[in-house]
């Protein structure tokens, strides 16, 4: 049984038995990740009438997405998998959204804050661009692509993981997909006297 966790937008969890979705939980609150992650995991198990012992693998969304929230789900998935000695699969969020749309020629973008977007483009089921951070006007280069909202959730993460594992795609890199450096510059130090 696969437990999928994603906090790239809201806080969501999904439980799969093979290909079958047993239950899914989604809290929309874009800030309440730390508050909601526990209940999201507990409820998704409860609704499917399962316990943590039944879970045999964990899938998490590794971004790109606003990192403060994203890390909550990644941390929870990591510790859950570590505690039970389970394999953990990390999925690129935009890939998960694209897979759900088949082989269309699409550009998938999600809010990267600071008036920027996380962007990836796909053709015939292959990623042909990204993931990258772009300004909205830079999307013009994808004029002939259908533009798709990249909002993701745990169900999409789980479906991608199941699909990718069947094809032997490596999902073992569990680091967050940071597309920006921490937004700081070393301070030179200022004079205090004039």
């Amino acid at each position, binding site marked *: 049984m696969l437990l999928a966790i994603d*906090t790239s937008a809201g806080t969501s969890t999904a439980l799969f038995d093979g290909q079958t979705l047993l239950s899914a939980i989604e809290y929309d609150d874009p800030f*309440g*990740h*730390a*508050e*909601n*992650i*526990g*209940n999201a*995991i*507990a409820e998704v*198990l409860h609704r499917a009438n399962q*316990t*943590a012992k039944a879970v045999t693998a964990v899938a998490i969304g590794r971004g790109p997405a606003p*990192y*403060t*929230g994203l*890390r*909550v*789900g*990644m*941390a*929870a*998935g*990591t*510790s*859950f998998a*570590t*505690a*039970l000695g389970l394999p953990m699969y990390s999925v690129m969020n935009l890939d998960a959204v694209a897979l759900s749309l088949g082989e269309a020629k699409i550009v998938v973008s999600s809010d990267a804050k600071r008036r920027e977007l996380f962007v990836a483009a796909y053709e015939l089921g292959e990623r042909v661009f990204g993931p990258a951070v772009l300004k909205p006007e830079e999307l013009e280069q994808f004029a002939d692509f259908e533009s798709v909202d990249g909002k993701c959730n745990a169900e999409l993460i789980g479906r991608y993981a199941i699909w990718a594992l069947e094809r032997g795609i490596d999902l073992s890199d569990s*680091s*967050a997909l*940071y597309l920006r450096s*921490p*937004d*700081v510059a*070393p*301070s030179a*130090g200022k*004079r*205090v*006297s004039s």
Partner: protein
Amino acid sequence: MEFLELSKEHLTSVMDLEQRLFPQDAWSAVSMAGELSASHTFYLGIFAPELIGYAGLATVAGSFSSDIQTIGIASDKRGNGLGRQLMQRLIAKAKELGSEQVMLEVRADNAVAIALYKDLGFEQIDIRKRYYQPAGIDALIMRLPIRQPIVLGIESTCDETGVGIVQGNRLLANSLHSSMDEHSKYGGVVPEVAARAHLEAIRPTLEKALGEAKLTMQDIDAIAVANGPGLAGALMVGIGAAKGLALAHNKPLYAVNHLVGHVGADVLERGAVELPTIALLVSGGHTSLLLVRHLLNDVELLGETIDDAAGEAFDKVARVLGLPYPGGPQIDKLAADGTASIRFPRGLTLPKDMEKHRYDFSFSGLKTAVARHVEKAQDAGEDFSKADVAASFREAVVDVLLTKAINACKDFGVNRLLLGGGVVANARLREEAQKRCSENGIELRIPRFQLCTDNGAMIAALGSQLVMAGRAPSSLSFGSESTLEVTQVQTL
């Protein structure tokens, strides 16, 4: 009928009953008074409404063991299970204090008492021949083992990822990953850098702690996590990890206060924290003066910094002097070759400030004064001693910290001072604290350095106190509380 904790005020009625119960070998009023007022004892009386029974427990700090000192029920009140109730309450207290066993001795001819103790789980482990004189009756030594909870604690409030494991008050593991080096080029902790480091460190730190303790997750009875005060993004990683862990094995989860954790760390050194105590917590993020009357129920914030934390001041002054981050150890090293000859200002110590900010701190003005001093000398092309500046700055920080802490001890009549936080690594602070405390008859306690800096063990220790006291776990819905008040020991 009422169970009440006994104190010196009850001496007369306790002695009256004592002499009736043990006409041949009653304790003297002097030793009983000592027992009732000692900080390591817990005496409980039954009132109906006069005293009809009492019992006492002694727990020597750091021994992980409690002793039943005495127990007695008025002869006309026996056979009603009162002795059992007293014993159960003393055992509960021993559990709460972190004891791993309760010991007692009993007259070999007291079949009723022996049967009661056996029923409560005590086993005879030894015998002392002719212990009770003048009758020459043997004493049986009996022992009740207590299995204390194993608690895993997660700390991620700032730049240290900590996972600690304790059993009761016993330290089993304290694994730490610091992102300090990654912050050094920025001259201070960068929240996003810290949060990224926590996520990467959580798995290896957890595995290392379990390895150190030679335990698996199945052995853990409860999880504790610091949910504030601290950096929100950093806290959220620890909280996410804690919830994932708790749910994986269906363990109770306790959200605890990081600052109170610094005080709680002391239980790992000497068993239950002796209270009340003044606590001075000094780090890169905090400078707080607390009055702790009870670790779980009564922690009062007397004062804190109104601008920079003391550790932050060390970092900033280090930069002024061209020294790398973190500044504390650098300044300490440099100051060793200097003399504190420059009188830098002591923040919030003027009479007008002392009215409003008696226990508050301010280090921003001090930092500026140091910077001005250095700039003036540099502008004039004068040769100046960096070592003297470092020593003088350090002296100003140490002086104001300890003046206010000792004031608090005197004002509240509390003769204990506990130090915590990373700045405690400062040799001069420790030395001066020792000097001023002995001058003022104050007992100084400084946990070992690994328990003073941010660490997971102190979070586990505070969680363990909550479990031992029978507190309900937190809900699954708590979040990060960047500015969590020190009065809130647990977030439910």
